[in-house]
């Protein structure tokens, strides 16, 4: 591509400035608290993530994830308590099966695996939370903007 044509592309600036938008569903008791801890500990992580607080990872309806993708989220992160630590006893176990199936299904139809990710982050894992976010952002950045299943592009950053 010549310099000229690059300049003419109206989106060229947008492209280079592109920052992925990540939706994170965090359970209230562990992962959200872990995110709070990251805050309290002032652990810096990329500002691309939008956290949605839910009571439990078991609360995450598969459609929440799909809708996020439809809305142009470049990545979705779901995080809950570690197995055995669920504040609601077994919500995360139930969720784990659901997510395993959903993740496979989405990948099967061609959604890049990095777009939808899952983690266990406890209330004491502020650093882990920051690391998970960093990883997700980095991987999604490498993929570029989401195009598949996108219905409406979220506001540019």
């Amino acid at each position, binding site marked *: 591509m010549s310099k000229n044509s690059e300049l003419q592309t109206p989106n060229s600036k947008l492209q280079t400035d592109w920052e992925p938008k990540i939706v994170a569903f965090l359970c209230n008791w562990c992962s959200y608290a872990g995110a709070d801890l990251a805050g309290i500990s002032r652990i810096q992580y990329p500002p691309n993530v939008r956290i949605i607080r839910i009571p439990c990872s078991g609360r995450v309806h598969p459609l929440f994830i799909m809708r996020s993708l439809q809305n142009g989220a470049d990545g979705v992160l779901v995080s809950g308590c570690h197995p*055995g630590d669920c504040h609601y006893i077994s919500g995360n176990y139930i969720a784990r099966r659901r997510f395993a199936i959903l993740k496979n299904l989405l990948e099967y139809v*061609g959604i890049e695996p990095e777009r939808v990710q899952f983690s266990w982050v406890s209330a004491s894992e502020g650093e882990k939370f920051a690391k998970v976010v960093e990883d997700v952002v980095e991987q999604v950045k490498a993929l570029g903007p989401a195009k598949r299943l996108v219905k409406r592009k979220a506001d540019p950053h």
Partner: protein
Amino acid sequence: MQKREKLLKEEVKKLLDKKQVDMVIGYEKGTLALRTTPCFLASVDDVDRLVWNEFCENNLAKYLPGRKEKVAIVAKGCDVRSIVGLIQERQITREQIFIVGIPCEGIIDRRKIESRLGEKEILEATCENGKILLRGEDFQEILKKGDFLYDSCKVCKYRNPIVFDLLIGDRVPELEKIDEYAEVRKFEAESPDERWLHFQKEISKCIRCYACRSACPLCYCEQCFVDQSQPRWIGITDNPSDVGVFHLFRVFHVAGRCVDCGACSRACPMNIDHRWLLKKMEKDVKELFGYEAGLSVEEVPPLATFKEEDPQDFIK
């Protein structure tokens, strides 16, 4: 085949005669060749309408949810698994139904025949000894049954009903050395781009008529999620994203429940390859959780339970 049909009629007569059931759900001859139609028999006199042949494609389990009376149902291997699902999910009780199990050696896919014959109108079709005899006004053709079976029948592992109150005739041999997930594996090996393209190709045919949903024996919701508002789960548009999510979601709903009866594919007017996704779900459920749908009424569907040692490599 004819022997089984005869046996079936005898048994059903007995059932109605002894008032063991209030009604029998079975198949009768269709108005067109290659077709049978579900029939609902309440009197002994009607029993002769019953048929059993290689064209009895419908999954009659579809007619069970919400039944109040005691019914007998003619059920193939796959149909029985659907019935088991319905019992697990409390849509009907085991006591309420009398399963007339019927071993099955595969159902003929009329679309395959029609596409073979093109414009020619078939007036009569019969099947004997692995041969399909077709007659029209000005032609007669014999086809090999094995070439014209439904895809799901080709990889069927439960040709003999596993739950029944009465089995019609002898068991048939189960298929051996079948690789039911060969197709899935082939796709899994492809690149995400190719899979995405295939997905797009399939769903681009969709006209959102919901025939797949209506045909599925396990779609019994009072109001389907696609029709709900508050929340509006999915946009009712032909936007590829909405269509895609609809299909993904429908498939997700039958994960661990689908028995590959093929009803959705048969109902689809646009020939969408539903089984492409369904088989993948089936495979994953089996591999991840060691579960196959519709084998035991005592089991809990896989997404409503868990094991502590369930796989979680995908979780950070």
